[in-house]
């Protein structure tokens, strides 16, 4: 058995064309994804909004209070520049500032557009006005509580807290990488197809020669399957490692679950390839073409080329997502890496397990034939 394993590994690894499709191409594709999307992480630091501050009423207490308020925010939410009225309007027209705060009895804001920056400025003003109104109301109705109210406003606490969900990622572009790993799992079909061709007497002279030997065909098939599973599992592992550590994309989640999913995905890919390789009427080029279809079409439907594709299919024809091995794999990775949904993960793993079993059984039944109607 060691003899068979050794030579099967040599044959497979040295077959450059198939190793390209199974290993190099997904890595290249992942690199292009990274170049296109970057790490794409959400929650990047927002830059301070450049803002002009015009003091129109120096003596007003309200103006002073507002000026003080803005000075506290300077450098974090806003980048304040003191200007005259004319300078501020000119700067706004020239897009050097996003808005103008007027420090008067009633602070005001002038903006020239409507975007995130303008919304931020508006919310700062609204927050100030609300707090000011509240303080004045307390002063009017409960003057004894004024100092406590002022203290409470000073002691502002974060009402939200971020916590790590077991290292899960919130990267919205992660779906492409999950689809890529799923595609890579299925690209084991190229290896499986070649193995089938090499073992069937009615398809190749090699298959005929191997069939005449006293080595049990079951042993030959088993060795081939094991070696190919192992090689392809390593291929996908290398790709996953490259995405995680080379490109720095956080896949999140449980390593064991990821490895289990990759293992099942590799089995499906190799086995389907073996089934495709047994199609007698197709030339070898035709079989490779079928493998390309088997990998790219499910990959596309799982969001490899258009990230929202899986969602579109889920809305219109969810059964396709249940039957598409790439979609199931991608969804399993999502459950592991993005949101914590054990039931959904178990469902996906169950579907993958069934697909693996069916694919391996189909491949086994077809490849183990020893006698043919025609050669």
């Amino acid at each position: 058995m060691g003899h068979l394993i050794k030579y099967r590994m040599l044959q497979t690894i040295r077959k450059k064309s198939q190793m390209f499709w199974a290993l190099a191409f997904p890595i290249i594709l992942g690199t292009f994804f990274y170049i296109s999307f970057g790490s794409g992480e959400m929650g990047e630091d927002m830059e301070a909004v450049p803002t002009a501050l015009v003091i129109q009423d120096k003596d007003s207490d309200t103006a002073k209070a507002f000026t003080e308020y803005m000075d506290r925010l300077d450098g974090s939410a806003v980048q304040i520049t003191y200007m005259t009225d004319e300078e501020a309007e000119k700067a706004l027209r020239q897009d050097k500032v996003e808005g103008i705060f007027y420090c008067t009895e009633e602070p005001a804001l002038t903006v020239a557009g409507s975007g995130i920056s303008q919304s931020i400025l508006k919310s700062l003003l609204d927050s100030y006005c609300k707090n000011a109104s509240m303080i004045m109301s307390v002063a009017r109705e409960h003057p004894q509580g004024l100092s406590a109210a002022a203290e409470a406003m000073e002691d502002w606490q974060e009402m939200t807290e971020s916590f790590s969900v077991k290292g899960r990622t919130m990267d919205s572009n992660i779906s492409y990488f999950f689809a890529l790993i799923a595609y890579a799992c299925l690209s084991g079909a190229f290896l499986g197809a070649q193995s089938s061709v090499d073992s069937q007497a009615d398809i190749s002279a090699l298959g005929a020669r191997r069939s005449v030997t006293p080595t049990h065909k079951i042993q030959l098939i088993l060795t081939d399957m094991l070696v190919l599973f192992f090689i392809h599992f390593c291929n996908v592992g290398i790709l996953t490692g490259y995405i995680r550590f080379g490109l720095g994309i956080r896949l999140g989640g449980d390593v064991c679950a990821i490895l289990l999913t990759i293992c099942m995905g590799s089995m499906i890919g190799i086995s389907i390839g073996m089934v495709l390789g047994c199609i007698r009427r197709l030339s070898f080029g035709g079989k490779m073409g079928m493998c390309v279809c088997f990998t790219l079409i499910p990959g596309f439907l799982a969001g490899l080329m258009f990230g929202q594709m899986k969602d579109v299919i889920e809305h219109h024809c969810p059964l396709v997502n249940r039957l598409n091995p790439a979609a199931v794999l991608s969804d399993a990775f999502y459950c592991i890496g993005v949101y914590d949904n054990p039931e959904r993960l178990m469902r996906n793993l169950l579907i993958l397990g069934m697909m693996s079993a069916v694919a391996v059984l189909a491949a086994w039944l077809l490849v183990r034939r020893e006698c043919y109607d025609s050669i």
Partner: protein
Amino acid sequence: MIEIRNLVKRYGSLIALDHLNLTIQEGEVFGLLGPNGSGKTTAINCMLAHLKYDKGEITIMGKPMRPDSYEVKKNIGVVMQNVAVFEQMTVRENIDYFCGLYKRDKVERKRLVEEAIEFVELGNYTKMRPGKLSGGLLRRLNIACGIVHRPRLIILDEPTVAVDPQSRNKILEGILELNRQGSTVIYTSHYMEEVEYICSRIAIIDHGRVLASGTKEELKNMIKTGETITIEAIVLDQVHLREIRSLPHVFDVSYEEQILQIRCGKAKHNLVRVLNYLQGKDIVFGKVFSELPTLNDVFLEITGKALRD
């Protein structure tokens, strides 16, 4: 060694093997001669239990041949018509791989691999991959992979197709050597010269049937032709041709493009009689050839067409 009885194989309405009967004795080089499409390869594939057949029995070394006849398969070596080696492995690796499918013992396997390499004279090419070898060398590698384990029975299915003459001679000599070393050989070909050269017994097959079998001499004795006389650069008219046809022991005359071919029966002095006639008529001629009957003649008389048709 091999017994085939009433073998029938159909592909739909086409009968590929039509009650084929063959007996191959141990130690002989048995030739299966026939044109393309005659059923040679089909018979071989049935023998090896690759092909299902509709009727008949095949026994090899006294045992029925089935896909799971692993004990029988241990003693069979096959050299396919198409080269069956792994492109990604070197010459040595290929031979070692196939030897490993028969022999488990590493020491024995190493010895057998070295012997096989020496036998096919590929010692200078052991580290090369099949893609770098010429056609002849590739065929030799193909043979080495089939015989490395020293089988008792070697089946070669047209092993010299598209091979240069030098390599072909080496291959044929190698096959004879294998036979001298004790292997029974089944050799299929549509090249009668090869079959005549190496085979001790021959079966002529066409349309899935054995038309005739026996030694070369036995086959040639089956036919009328004792001698074929060919005369070139000769100009004859119909009267001459009629008179030549009426010469004793002449049973067939053909004349085309100034080449006269006369088939004579098994008698002495056929050539002398023909030449005397031509001299007597003052007929000028060029080269003269006289050949003993070939297997092609046997095939022609039995089937009415030449082997290469």
